[in-house]
């Protein structure tokens, strides 16, 4: 039954990929189409209020600059709201202003689509902050990621000097994609018992006459966009493990598909832009192979139970239940953990800190690779980066200038790609080492032994991959952690965005080379294998040593 439920969810995803991928293509292809009738009117109003009259194509520099400035303005406004929330409206539980380093961390976390949370929503944020900062950034940061992918795709599939108009893309991403989807998912979730109210905490006398307080709020409208935007920050501290955020296995499946659908569908969108659907399926195939391998690891490991508990003589029939919810069981927990770290969402329906050592390797590895579906938009761009590395390596082997989609890959592109590729391990391993050298870092560890290494490693991996889940035992709400992970999130997000848009900007200007019999094909099964190999070899060379110190050592110690 466990395997069957996972297979069915994967099949449901496959059904969504084509229609959603085509829809996204139509939204951003800038040719007139049916969606104009519904949305063009609203967009016209938005353009006129914002004073956007003409929307010409932009060079990669102009596009990137507009994107960064928009993000900076949103960060500034959001920071002010968090610092002043005590005096702002909609604060029924009278929550205080947020401290400065925590506000910095929180605002960076949401703008970078990470959603690492060093606060707990029910006690740290007013409803106004939850709405105007958290929910707002869940839209804007996700759209930022999606349009980076669209601009990158335009760069490698079209010819000219421009990669699209930032304002038009940014507005359409909201009006035609995320807002309509979020409205539908919100209402479905409320129907399935996720609360949506502006009333304060509920006071109750329980069956045994005790007083119980129940935090609630506008939960459903946050949970929907949290997943659709691969954001992951929960309304409550325990995220989608909370019965209000995720009341039943059915809502669990809806949330899984919500966070998975856009990253998966974008591979199809890419195929449409490339006018060769096989190109898209090759990318999807490589992602799916890696996904299934890691899903199997966590499912088998969690189902076999915690070796330390089995040694006491307890039955492992239910699997490892510590930190998991009864309604989900092993299959829905393992699948959720795999999707949330593959699609770098970071929402959790079970506590990753309590995962068995081998099970914990799955979320860690997926965030380290950062390309298996990946966050909205950026995941696809990362995988396309590996595709270019793939053709580069193969080009070296046969001694030909590598080409991708008919464009020569030359030193400028490879240099930029190397920067994006190396930044990721650098901002994980560097700060992890630094944290172990100081008491400020080591003091936060809550689990003794090798697991403590995993806790620190997980935190920085999650920040760098803009995931946002955590081994949450870590006492991370201190200035040291707030500032260090804040910087890692910023670098993790923007270094690769800038470098890869620069690659797009340089590829769009190249003269296409005609395809010949000697052209290395990137639309066949062989290339799926090359992609998987490139991702795994580069990932393993970089991260295997530190994996051995953390989860693998812990496994050997309790086996």
């Amino acid at each position, binding site marked *: 039954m466990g395997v069957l*439920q996972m297979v069915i969810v994967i099949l449901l995803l496959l059904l969504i990929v084509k229609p959603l991928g085509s829809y996204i293509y139509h939204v951003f292809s800038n040719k007139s189409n049916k969606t104009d009738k519904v949305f063009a009117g609203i967009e016209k109003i938005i353009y006129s*209020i*914002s004073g956007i009259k003409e929307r010409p194509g932009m060079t990669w520099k102009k596009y990137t600059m507009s994107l960064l*400035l*928009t993000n900076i303005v*949103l960060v500034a406004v959001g920071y002010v709201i968090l610092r002043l929330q005590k005096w702002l409206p909609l604060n029924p539980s009278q929550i205080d202003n947020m401290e400065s380093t925590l506000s910095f961390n929180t605002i960076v976390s949401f703008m970078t689509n990470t959603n690492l949370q060093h606060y707990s929503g029910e006690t740290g944020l007013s409803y106004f902050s939850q709405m*105007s900062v958290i929910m*707002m950034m869940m839209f804007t940061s996700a759209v930022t990621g999606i349009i980076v992918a669209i601009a990158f795709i335009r760069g490698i599939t079209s010819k000219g000097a421009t990669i699209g108009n930032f304002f038009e893309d940014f*507005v359409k991403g909201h009006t035609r994609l995320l*807002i309509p989807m979020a409205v539908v998912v*919100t*209402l479905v979730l409320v*129907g399935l*018992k996720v*609360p*949506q*109210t*502006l009333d304060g905490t509920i006071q*109750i006398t*329980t*069956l*045994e006459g*005790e007083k*119980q*307080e*129940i*935090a609630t709020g*506008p939960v*459903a409208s946050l949970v929907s966009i949290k997943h659709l935007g691969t954001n992951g920050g929960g309304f409550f501290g*325990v995220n989608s493990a909370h*019965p*209000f955020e995720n*009341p*039943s296995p*059915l809502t*669990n499946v809806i949330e899984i598909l919500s966070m998975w659908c856009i990253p998966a569908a974008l591979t199809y969108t890419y195929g449409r832009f490339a006018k060769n659907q096989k190109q898209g399926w090759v990318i999807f195939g490589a992602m799916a192979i890696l996904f299934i391998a890691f899903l199997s690891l966590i499912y088998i490991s969690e189902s076999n*139970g*915690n070796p*330390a*508990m089995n040694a006491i*003589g*307890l*039955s492992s029939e*239910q699997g490892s239940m*510590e*930190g*998991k*919810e*009864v309604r*989900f069981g092993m299959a829905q927990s393992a699948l959720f953990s795999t999707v949330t770290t593959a699609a770098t969402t970071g929402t*959790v329906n079970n506590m990753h*800190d*309590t995962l068995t*050592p081998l099970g914990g390797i799955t979320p860690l590895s997926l965030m380290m690779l950062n390309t298996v579906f990946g966050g909205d938009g950026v995941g696809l761009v990362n995988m396309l980066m590996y595709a270019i590395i793939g053709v580069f390596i193969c080009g070296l082997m046969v001694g030909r200038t590598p080409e991708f989609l008919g464009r020569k890959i030359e030193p400028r592109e490879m240099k930029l790609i190397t920067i994006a590729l190396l930044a990721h391990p650098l901002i994980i391993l560097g700060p992890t080492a630094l944290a172990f050298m100081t008491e400020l870092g080591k003091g936060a560890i809550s*689990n*003794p032994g090798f*697991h403590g290494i995993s806790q620190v490693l997980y935190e920085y991996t999650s920040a760098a991959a803009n995931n946002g889940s955590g081994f*949450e*035992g870590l006492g991370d709400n201190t200035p040291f952690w707030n500032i260090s992970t804040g910087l890692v999130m910023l670098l993790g997000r923007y270094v690769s965005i800038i470098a890869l848009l620069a690659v797009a900007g340089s590829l769009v200007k190249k003269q296409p080379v005609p395809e010949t019999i000697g052209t290395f094909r990137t639309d066949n099964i062989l290339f799926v294998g090359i992609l998987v190999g490139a991702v795994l070899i580069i990932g393993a060379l970089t991260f295997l040593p530190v994996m051995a110190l953390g989860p693998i050592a812990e496994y050997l*110690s309790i086996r």
Partner: protein
Amino acid sequence: MLKIIRLSLLLIVLCGIVYPVAMTGLAQTIFPSQADGSLVKNSDGKVVGSELIGQNYKSPQYFQGRVSSIENNGASTGSNNYAPSNEDMLKRTEDSIKVLQKENPELDKKDIPLDLITNSGSGLDPHISVRAAEFQAERVSEKTGIKKEELLAMIKDSTTNRSLGIFGEPHVNVLELNMKVQDVME
């Protein structure tokens, strides 16, 4: 630059205020009970909890829920986040086993339902497995005088099967079950 500021402020209003407020209005109109947190009333019409939020049951005449390091305090959430190798977690588990063995000296460790002695992820898990409920039927029957068969029937009544027959695991709502026990006792 002015364009960027104006567009940003507009999106803050649209996504951060209009969207959640409109959703709240719609949700409250279409699904009022769900939108307010699925509160449960007893036979006197008094609210005794939410069907989705676990409660503490100290007296042995009630079915017990999952371990909760926050004692099911719904104002916050969380767990101790114990690693699988954590000694404190193993000690807590051993203690739970001892309590169960005190009630039932012949108990084989292999027969203990694991969800009864492990902390849930949320600390508010309102459910236990069917086996964990049946496991407690003997004790509840002894303490309340309700026949075991009757209790087993109540358990069956409070069980939710897999969603659509496929997804998740069958689970028993502990509050619903204990309300049935309370109704009979009165």
